[in-house]
């Protein structure tokens, strides 16, 4: 199927150059950041670069490899993506299931499949691409009417399947990423109410953590009461509305009293609850947690759970306005931040280049995201647009969550910073996501023909 002769003209024509430049700029920044983390003033960095023993040299090889993959994708026929979407998705799910059998345990999650050369593959990463493709394909089908609840539920199921598998692999972060598809679905007609309800629920959960449950219940009851009183005349005309208000009140009350505590004590693991509590500056009592009551004993003697965030904030905060300078970050050189070349890579940037650096970097990302949205909007085929929004969602979710967790705005979940964090799987995933989009974008005129 993929044997279509590549058209040399169409390779460069129509490919969005800005995205390509940004893509390579990001990777370069990433390698620089990893270099800062691994730099040892006593060692000879140039020789270890060639030997490929350090993370930054490995990352360079990954980047070269990914560039080839990118070129390869650009050489493909864009029809191949729609054609292969189903098979890829199915294969991805199968690979994820396979990890339960042949998976390799890395950092406490059995989501890796060892492949040749000491490299490991994380199918859940690749599944993001496949899910984006299949969602796009499903929504783009002429018979799908996405305004209907049935199609929305089917789309949700497609997303929920790999997410559920990720949770089973103890990859909470990866599972959360699947919520990024909400952007694409919202764009295609998902009622905004879902966004509002989701947001309200999130606020409610945070409020539950911050405020005493009894006081919060009283506040909620008070607001409902006031609302009914002020609107009493309107409610007299339409009695149904009063039940809606009362219903919302009941849901809120139930959430505060039963649902949220239940989730923290029974659904989340102890460390997850602790991280979420520590984010709002509170301590979680693990003895309440039924799920990991047994494992709690083992965790004793480890570093406190907010150690990462604390060190990460110190590193970023110590950068100040101008930063400490390239390779001069004391926290980075002292290796105070754990996982600094993967999930906490942002800290080395923050320490070395300060607010100027982080602000510029965020600006670059923002520009990148808006560029992708622009690309999405200029697509004529629904498939391309849905896929583009999926890419935007995935990128945005990774960036927002990763940076937020390093600066203490979000609980720590293991999510890499796209194109920056060290890691072949993640780099490959984002490369494929971007280049497939570029390939589709390059053909935006063609599909109509």
């Amino acid at each position, binding site marked *: 199927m993929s044997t279509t002769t590549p058209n040399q003209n169409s390779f460069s024509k129509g490919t969005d150059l800005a995205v390509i430049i940004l893509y390579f700029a990001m990777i370069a920044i990433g390698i620089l950041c990893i270099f800062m983390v691994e730099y040892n003033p006593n060692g000879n960095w140039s020789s270890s670069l060639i030997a490929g023993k350090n993370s930054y040299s490995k990352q360079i090889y990954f980047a070269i490899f990914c560039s080839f993959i990118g070129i390869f994708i650009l050489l493909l026929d864009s029809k191949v993506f729609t054609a292969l979407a189903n098979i890829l998705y199915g294969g991805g799910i199968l690979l994820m299931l396979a990890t339960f059998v042949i998976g390799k345990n890395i950092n406490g999650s059995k989501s890796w499949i060892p492949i040749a050369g000491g490299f490991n593959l994380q199918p859940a990463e690749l599944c993001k691409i496949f899910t984006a493709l299949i969602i796009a394909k499903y929504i783009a089908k002429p018979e799908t009417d996405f305004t209907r609840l049935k199609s929305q539920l089917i789309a949700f199921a497609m997303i929920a399947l790999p997410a559920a598998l990720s949770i089973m692999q103890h990859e909470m972060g990866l599972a959360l990423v699947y919520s990024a598809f909400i952007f694409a679905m919202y764009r295609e007609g998902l009622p905004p109410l879902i966004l509002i309800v989701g947001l309200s629920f999130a606020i409610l959960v945070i409020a539950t953590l911050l405020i005493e449950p009894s006081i919060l219940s009283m506040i909620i009851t008070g607001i409902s009461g006031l609302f009914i009183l002020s609107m009493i005349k309107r409610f007299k005309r339409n009695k149904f509305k009063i039940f809606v208000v009362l219903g919302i009140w009941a849901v809120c009350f139930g959430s505060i009293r039963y649902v949220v505590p239940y989730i923290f004590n029974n659904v989340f693991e102890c460390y997850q609850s602790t991280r979420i509590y520590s984010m709002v500056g509170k301590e979680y009592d693990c003895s309440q947690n039924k799920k990991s009551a047994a494992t709690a004993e083992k965790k004793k003697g480890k570093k406190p759970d907010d150690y990462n965030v604390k060190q990460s904030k110190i590193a970023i*905060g110590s950068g100040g306005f101008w930063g400490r300078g390239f390779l001069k970050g*004391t926290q980075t050189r002292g290796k105070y931040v754990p996982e600094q070349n993967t999930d906490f890579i942002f800290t080395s940037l923050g320490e070395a280049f300060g607010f100027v650096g982080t602000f510029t970097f965020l600006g670059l990302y923002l520009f990148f995201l808006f560029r992708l949205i622009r690309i999405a909007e200029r697509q004529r085929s629904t498939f391309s647009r849905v896929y583009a929004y999926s890419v935007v969602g995935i990128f945005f979710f990774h960036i927002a969550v990763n940076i937020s967790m390093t600066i203490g705005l979000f609980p720590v979940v293991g999510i890499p910073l796209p194109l920056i964090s060290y890691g072949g799987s993640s780099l490959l995933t984002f490369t494929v996501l971007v280049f497939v989009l570029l390939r589709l974008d390059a053909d935006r005129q063609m599909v109509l023909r």
Partner: protein
Amino acid sequence: MALYNSNRSGIIQIIIGVVVAIIVGQLISLQIFSNRYKLAADNNAIFRKIIYPDRGIIYDRKKRALLENTISYDLVVIPNEAKGVDTAALCEILKIDKEEYIKRMIDVIVKNSRVKVGVFEPFLTPELYAQLTENLYRFPGFSLSERSIRNYPYNTAAHVLGYVAEVDINFLQKHETDGYEMGDYAGMTGLEKQYEDVLMGQRGVKRYLRDNKGKIQGAFEKGQFDTVAVAGRNLYTTMDVEVQQLAEKLLQNKIGSAVVLNPKTGGVIAMASSPGYNPNLLTGNQRRRTIGTLLTDTARPIYNRAIKGQYPPGSTFKPMGALIALDEGLISPGYGYNCYGSYNACGDPRKCTHSNAGHAANLQVALANSCNSYFLQVFRMAIDNPKYGNAKAGYIKWKEYVNSFGLGRKLGIDLPSENKANIPDTAAYNKDFGNPTSWNSCYMLTLGIGQDRMTATPLQLANSMALIANEGYYYTPHFVDSIEEEDKEDKAVLSKYRTKQDVTKISSDIFKIIKEGMHDVTVYGTANGVKLPGHEYCAKTGTAQNPHGENHSIFVCFAPKENPKVAVAVVVENAGYGATWAGPISTLLMEKYLNDTLTPESAKKSDELAKVDLMPQSIKDWYIKNKSDRLKPIDEYQNDELGDVWDMEMVSEYKPKPKVQDTIKKVVDSATSKNEPTSPKRSSLKKDSAAILQKKKKKITRPKNVNHNT
């Protein structure tokens, strides 16, 4: 289809923008408006190593080091790295048990946190040091740290030199701006305290980069923030270590003090206080054992009696009294008084040791015979001086004179906590005798012979001798002659010791008469049995009555008679006549200084004197009673504690309670009206003040841990 819902693209962009804005907001608060992360980062990653400079050395006048620095080792530990320690072996070497090990570890953590170096066992003995160096590999996290401590090669002058000790919280609060840190050592008393900023030098700080495991990665920023340690500067004193040693030797087994001054410069040649202690006992690991014993000892060995002991000067004040009358023109050197064994002009007769006619025929003779009546009369003349109208005004003038001679005020010697002793002011007498209009020179009659409430420190007495020796001026007594590499500031400090203090306008002729009188003291007067080989000398004996028991034996003198080079004051508490004990001690000290050696007879005499035991029985009883207590070391004392004791006032100055005041009134009343015998009442007064003394002593010896531990 493409246009459908396209406004939602805007909403998505807004959501992205808002989230990024929130992130930027947090970054602003972290990176721009918060210093604490920078501090936290420095605490994490920068390891400050303090380089302690050597403290300055204190030399005597012949450049002999009174104290030096030696190296001592501490066993230190970084608690975080102390993992897998062979605790059993370590406990065995240090002779502690497991509990003590844990306790010390916790102490170190509390004091210095887990990641910093803390002292586990200070001042290792050489044997311990050897044992530990061999076995150190078994104790990860532990290391041996070098530290410079004081060493006193002559075992002398403990009171003068003072001591250094680790600073505590109190000290740090008091010296907040001086840059001290926990673990520093500072002078706590004596010259060590007085010249702390000269002696301490400047600490150096080296900064190292440290990783998350506490491993040093190298110099921070190539050492550009490091400071170099500057060694403390040396002090060159006017002391003479041999005279000092002799003074301490002669005062053995006695309670008292000796001060030897160079009248030409005001430099202190020797200053001894007995009982004393070996300064080496308060350095290194000895300190812990000694300090408690020293603090609780009833004879108060750490108390510098030379500048803090207040003694009634007794007859040694007489030359001073004469000077006032002469300066005021009230008497001439030829003035005589008919004394027949007592002074009766104020009713109650005051005894005089001599009763033969003519023993006070003129000033010179009266001085030689130490005639009480003569000097009581001279005192009354000064108080009732018609020039000033009334007795009160006369007294004020008289006090002015006495103060100008350096009595009743701080001389300003370069030692901390000098006592000004006491020349009572009019307020005190107003309180006792009521209406100032009824003032009368008889009220404080015995001030004229250095009794009543007059007290002086041995230093003040020695200084008064320097004044007479110099015929009218003195230099403020001091120890430090010069400072190494003296700078402007040092010169300002020392300038006050280099300025002549002119205090009288009495002509030197009159001084010559006083000197002759004092010379006669040593020829045929009260001290005729006390000789100074090779030199003529002038002296005055004193046998001071005091409320604490036997009379104090006091001797003041200077030599040679012509062109005096040395002035001495010696007090031996509760020892009787001045000429008996204080006299020979004084002359031996002068002989040693002037001749640089002692004649064989003098040497023999000094050995005998050293053996004489004049300790009051009450103190001996205390030692017998508390023998077991005395040897028990008390190591919970804070370092400031010694300084506190040092600062405490000697309690010999008695403050009459109301009841006592009544008694005095009655005594005075009866003395002026009926001439009744008053001796029983006097003895009751004695008892009362003894009781006060007892109470105060109790208060002093109680350790005050409570305040310091907070």
